[in-house]
């Protein structure tokens, strides 16, 4: 049996499989099935960490997920992972762990001087101290505090690819949280009724309390076997329900076993999103500490933890344990250790008498009734305890090497509280419980204060029966789930703290003492939430599970009110700290958001395109790998001088059909569409109801009752929703159907003076002369043999066509266009060149359609229809939207053509340099004119055309003389598009 403290067989350990691990550089051996905590205890290691503030030596306190002290850094392929709970970390061969928050070593910690300074470091010390001299907080104190912050150290791994992660969606009739006796009984009953059950438990095994009491072992095994036979019950081991989110939704974290981890390619945890019609919260009642001086010395731990280490791992946490408890349940640890041959040092119990005390006496154990522990001898390990009478006065000194404490059990009410359940104070157990509304589910077993294994099982069964009936299932009363009867027990006596000199902790991780709580009260922080914030009580990784209520009780005492009046802290998710990786799931890094790819993505890639991420889309920016403007201008010049082709398939395309289609478009657009002839297209401007511009695009009338609306790439989703929303509300009486056809159509712009020649070589069935197919013509056409559509529209300002074909034919049509254009000098152009061309032409995009501009601001005020209702009509007429000093669209150019423009440059008058008159929205070196051209929004800008302003970009240390010009830098007469 590896480890000197291993005294027997554990239920979870495999005595035939030793496992080697390393702690603080020491090679140690334990057994398969051990946790790091049980492995350290088996090896006689008591000291496992240092506390947060005072750097006091700390040991293992619990045997489960509520552990406040035994936190370690684990070093492995995932880097250095801080704050791992030794009490739940299942040991694996070769595990490397290090204690944390100590320097230079665990046994000699330089910062332990904080403990001696603690008279000057009470709770809330930040707010009142560290203030003088004035500069010192930021330059001296704060850096010092920050360096001392935190417990563990996070070091990222040196791997390139993120570890696998996944989120699984689950559905059940009933979620049973907790696989202790109540949960087991409930799951069994529900499964027997044919209900779909998820049984989630944070432990690696079924049973919880049943594991700990010998008389329940057989029952547990029967139950486990029965559950395995029920096809609708699924047990999720090592799964913590993190939070209850309402509407039957729960989040849970499943930690994978080594076998499952291997199968899922190294997956360590998975997040489960569980949806259930009802929930049974059988979450148990963790044991709580008692605040007495020295209750943090390594070797002081919860009594139930000692029982757990013995039963689960065969480890005796000491050779001479003392027991300091106020309830009969906690004596089980003593009886079990005694039964395993460990001789207890004695029992200290504040109650005058109890049944368990009698039994201890009958075993020959020294019992101090009506007594408390006044102090603990030893610093890095318990050496003895000093026993005092309840009313004061020294009674005895016990030689002991560990002290098992229990201040009672505090039902886990977090999930119930998150579901809105009010908390009720239960005098008998000195704790709060909560009940759920029947439509939500119920709380069962110790979680609602029902102690005793048989009683809890009956309670779980009753809860399950009620839910099964509620869900319309017949309940078979023949199923028996009875356990051996619970032994009689004497009720607990409330005991929260022992008043005696020395630090008595209520929050072991955050180093909050009873004195801190009283200080907070004296300073005026008497609300529980204020005390928590002032002292940080309950805010550590264990969320106050062992001492939260104890701290509240100390505050209650200071205030002179019952604990029930002080209340409880609002328990927020998560029930257990969750790694970012597990919450994030698999859609991270490259897959953080879906990538929308063009139908010709592969072609663009092969052609050497640099892609830009535009929302979800990947779009060719320029067909060159090199940066700089030259390749962009070469593409743009091809369009200006000959012909170019660009992929505009990202534009939103919405099919609008129905008898009222024209009427509908008249309402959603600020300009008129009912007058548009079939076979024609028109530029349209959509406003929001507040009168500002929402989106623009070209809409074509394909048939009397059939339109195709195009939207900007970035607004395609929003415009579709906007149309659908209005069709189902304000326009409900209209007979119109709108359908997204964005992905169906690949669309290419062929632009440039020679574009007609290109089209003439591939388009059949449509004469392309200027007369037959003039500017803004639209219609069906056959392109390279593919049935598609042709539009004579232009964003570049050149003679241009847009070709639309079903995306599966994109490559053949695109290739045919390029082949046809080759003799004419066609070249593909990307988004950058497109942008250059449209800026030269004075066309707007998102930089100008920025949600704060009106149609008039953009120079399109005359487009608004004179009569008839449309979205945004009324509020567009507000005074503020008509003011003459509004920012209006203009063109800008540097006076010195060798200077560049920069987007975001502010424009000011030379005489008032701190007053912004506007800013540059878009800019580019021109393909047509010498130097740079840009667009800007300038206060009263149209009236300033011809003026000079200063362009200032202080973040680039640039100042440029700017000339305000018309936004139409190229072809102001608009003759090319009509050529």
């Amino acid at each position: 049996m590896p480890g000197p403290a291993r005294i027997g067989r554990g239920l979870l350990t495999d005595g035939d499989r030793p496992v080697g691990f390393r702690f603080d550089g020491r090679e140690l051996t334990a057994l398969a099935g051990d946790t790091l905590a049980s492995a350290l205890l088996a090896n006689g290691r008591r000291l496992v960490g240092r506390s947060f503030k005072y750097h006091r030596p700390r040991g293992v306190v619990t045997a489960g997920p509520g552990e406040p002290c035994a936190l370690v850094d684990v070093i492995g392929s995932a880097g250095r992972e801080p704050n791992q709970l030794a009490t739940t970390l299942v040991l694996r061969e070769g595990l490397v762990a290090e204690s944390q928050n100590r320097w230079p070593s665990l046994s000699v910690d330089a910062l332990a001087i904080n403990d001696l300074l603690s008279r000057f470091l009470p709770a809330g010390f930040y707010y009142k101290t560290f203030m003088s001299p004035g500069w010192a907080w930021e330059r001296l104190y704060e850096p010092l505090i920050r360096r001392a912050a935190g417990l563990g150290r996070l070091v990222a791994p040196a791997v390139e690819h993120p570890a696998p992660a996944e989120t699984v969606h689950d559905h059940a009739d009933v979620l049973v949280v907790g696989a202790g006796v109540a949960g087991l009984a409930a799951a069994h009953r529900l499964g027997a009724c044919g209900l779909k059950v998820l049984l989630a438990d944070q432990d690696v095994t079924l049973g919880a309390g049943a594991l700990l009491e010998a008389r329940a072992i057989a029952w547990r095994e029967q139950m486990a076997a029965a559950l395995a036979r029920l096809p609708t019950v699924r047990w999720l081991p090592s799964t913590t329900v993190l939070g209850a989110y309402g509407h039957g939704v729960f989040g849970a974290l499943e930690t994978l076993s080594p076998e499952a981890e291997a199968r899922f390619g190294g997956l360590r945890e998975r997040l489960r999103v569980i949806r259930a019609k009802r929930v049974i919260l059988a979450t148990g009642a963790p044991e709580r500490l008692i605040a007495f001086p020295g209750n943090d010395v390594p070797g002081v731990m919860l009594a139930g933890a000692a029982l757990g280490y013995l039963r689960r791992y065969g480890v005796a946490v000491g050779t001479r344990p003392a027991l300091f408890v106020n309830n009969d349940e906690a004596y089980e640890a003593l009886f079990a250790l005694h039964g395993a041959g460990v001789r207890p040092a004695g029992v200290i119990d504040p109650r005058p008498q109890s049944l368990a005390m009698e039994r201890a006496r009958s075993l020959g154990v020294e019992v101090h009734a009506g007594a408390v522990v006044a102090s603990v001898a030893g610093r890095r390990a318990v050496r003895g305890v000093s026993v005092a009478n309840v009313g004061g006065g020294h009674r005895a000194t016990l030689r002991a090497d560990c002290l098992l404490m229990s201040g009672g059990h505090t039902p886990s009410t977090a999930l119930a509280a998150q579901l809105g359940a009010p908390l009720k104070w239960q005098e008998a157990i000195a704790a709060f419980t909560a009940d759920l509304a029947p439509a939500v589910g119920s709380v069962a077993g110790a979680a609602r204060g029902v102690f005793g294994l048989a009683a809890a099982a009956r309670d779980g069964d009753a809860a399950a029966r009620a839910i099964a009936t509620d869900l319309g299932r017949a309940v078979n009363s023949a199923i028996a789930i009875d356990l051996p009867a619970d032994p009689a027990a004497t009720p607990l006596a409330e005991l929260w703290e022992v008043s005696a000199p020395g630090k008595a902790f209520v929050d072991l991780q955050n180093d909050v003492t009873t004195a801190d709580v009283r200080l907070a009260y004296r300073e005026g922080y008497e609300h529980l939430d204020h005390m928590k914030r002032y002292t940080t009580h309950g805010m550590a990784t264990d969320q106050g599970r062992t001492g939260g209520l104890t701290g509240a009780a100390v505050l209650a005492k200071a205030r002179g009110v019952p604990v029930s009046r002080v209340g409880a802290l609002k328990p927020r998710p998560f029930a257990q700290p969750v790694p970012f990786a597990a919450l994030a799931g698999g859609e991270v890094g490259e897959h953080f958001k879906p990538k929308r790819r063009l139908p010709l993505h592969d072609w663009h890639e092969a052609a050497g395109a640099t892609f830009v991420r535009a929302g979800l889309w990947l779009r060719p920016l320029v067909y060159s790998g090199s940066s700089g403007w030259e390749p962009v201008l070469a593409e743009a010049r091809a369009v200006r001088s000959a012909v170019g082709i660009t992929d505009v398939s990202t534009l939103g395309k919405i099919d609008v059909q129905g008898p009222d289609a024209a009427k509908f478009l008249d309402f959603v657009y600020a300009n008129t569409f009912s007058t548009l002839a079939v076979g024609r297209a028109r530029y349209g401007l959509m406003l929001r109801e507040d009168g500002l511009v929402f989106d623009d695009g070209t809409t074509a009338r394909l048939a009397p009752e059939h339109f195709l609306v195009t939207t900007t790439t970035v607004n395609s989703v929003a415009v579709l929703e906007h149309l659908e929303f209005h069709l189902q509300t304000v326009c409900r009486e209209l007979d119109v159907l709108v359908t997204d056809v964005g992905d169906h159509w690949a669309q290419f712009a062929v632009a440039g003076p020679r574009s007609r020649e290109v089209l003439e070589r591939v388009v059949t069935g449509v004469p392309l002369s200027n007369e037959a197919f003039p500017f803004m013509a639209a219609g069906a056409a056959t392109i390279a043999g593919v049935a598609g559509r042709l539009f004579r529209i232009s964003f570049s300002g050149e003679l241009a066509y847009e070709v639309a074909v079903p995306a599966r034919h994109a490559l053949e049509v695109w290739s045919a266009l390029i082949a046809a254009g080759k003799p004419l000098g066609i070249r593909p152009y990307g988004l950058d060149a497109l942008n250059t061309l449209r800026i030269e032409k004075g066309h707007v995009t998102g930089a100008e359609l920025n949600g704060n501009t009106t149609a008039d601001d953009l120079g399109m005020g005359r487009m608004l229809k004179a009569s008839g209702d449309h979205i945004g009509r009324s509020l567009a007429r507000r005074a503020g939207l008509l003011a003459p000093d509004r920012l209006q669209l203009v063109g800008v150019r540097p006076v010195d053509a060798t200077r560049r423009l920069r987007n975001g440059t502010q424009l000011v008058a030379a005489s008032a340099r701190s007053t912004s008159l506007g800013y540059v929205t878009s800019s580019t070196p021109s393909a047509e004119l010498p130097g740079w051209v840009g667009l800007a929004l300038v206060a009263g800008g149209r009236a300033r055309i011809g003026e000079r302003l200063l362009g200032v970009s202080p973040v680039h240390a640039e100042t440029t003389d700017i000339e305000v010009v018309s936004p139409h830098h190229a072809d102001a007469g608009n003759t090319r598009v009509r050529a």
Partner: protein
Amino acid sequence: MVIVGGGGHGLATAYYLATRHGITDVAVVEKGAIGLGNVGRNTTFIRSNYFHPDNIRFYEFSLQLWENLERSLNFNAMVSQRGTLNLFHTEAQRDLFARRANQMRLLGVDAEALGRDAVKALVPLIDLDNGRYPVLGGFLQPRGGTVRHDAVAWGYARGASEAGVDIIEDCEVTGITRSGARVTGVETTRGSIGAETVCLAVAGHSSRLASMAGVTLPIETHVLQAFVTEAVKPVLDVVLTYGPSHFYVSQSDKGGLVYGGALDGYNTYGQRGTLPMAEELAACAVTLMPGLARLKVLRQWGGVMDMTMDGSPLITQTPVDGLILNGGWCYGGFKAIPAGGVTTAHLIAHGSSHPLAAHLGLGRFAAGRTVDERGVGPFPWTH
């Protein structure tokens, strides 16, 4: 006079009324305990990087007040000007940030453009080339940072109390009394209080309180979630924002990473978090900083935000004489506490807007002079 709401703005308003205007006949009534609303549950950032010149001036005024706060309050609110770094991942974002930074600099406010190398040097955890949305650079406001939020409420409460203001806890306002178009006082769970002036500073509950006086506001109440991780040794020395998911994060002095993101997207008074948001923000965090993958998230919570229709706050008189509103803070109320207090106190004391808050009146909506930083229009859940 009565100030409803013992949060940051209510307490600051009371403090400045007493200390700057000598008005001490003030009662702050709070339905629970002071400082437990949004001031006690936010992510504590301070900054003055805005687009609108009027907003820059207002928030810069606030930032300057923060810089001198511990002196004036004799209480260390742990103001930490570690810098606010806005990352950009598209050129469009870069242009917007540049425009904003230049506007700030015109007004004498600090702002700097950082290249990729400088970003990486400042935040070594960042994966600049994260595959989906590579970081192209950042804009830094060096004087931005964090403040210890609880200390703000406590400091102002102490200051106001010492100056003679009454702070009444566990006192919920159940009605606002009027005589014609004039406010006459409030009814509370602890009795009626007569007052010539009633100031509402109740954040997410602004609509509810205003409706007691028959006033409907351009406000919807939405939840904003926040998260904190376990404490670790320092890994992040700046307040960081990253566009996708509106992710923002900083590391507290105690060692926990405090972070959050966008609104849930529908109105609610429930101060709680949701799972989809927890997943989304974690994915964003791991995408931006893969080294955080094994860091553990401790808690999630929510605060209810008084979202206006243009995303900017309201420091304003209302249609009811004597009823003053300090609200509509959206999720930016914390950083504005000192300026909100000063300008609201000014409005109460002088009956006219403080010059720095003149653009924050209720009349701007009907007049078409909204202050819409992001240009998203009257859809508060998208601000």
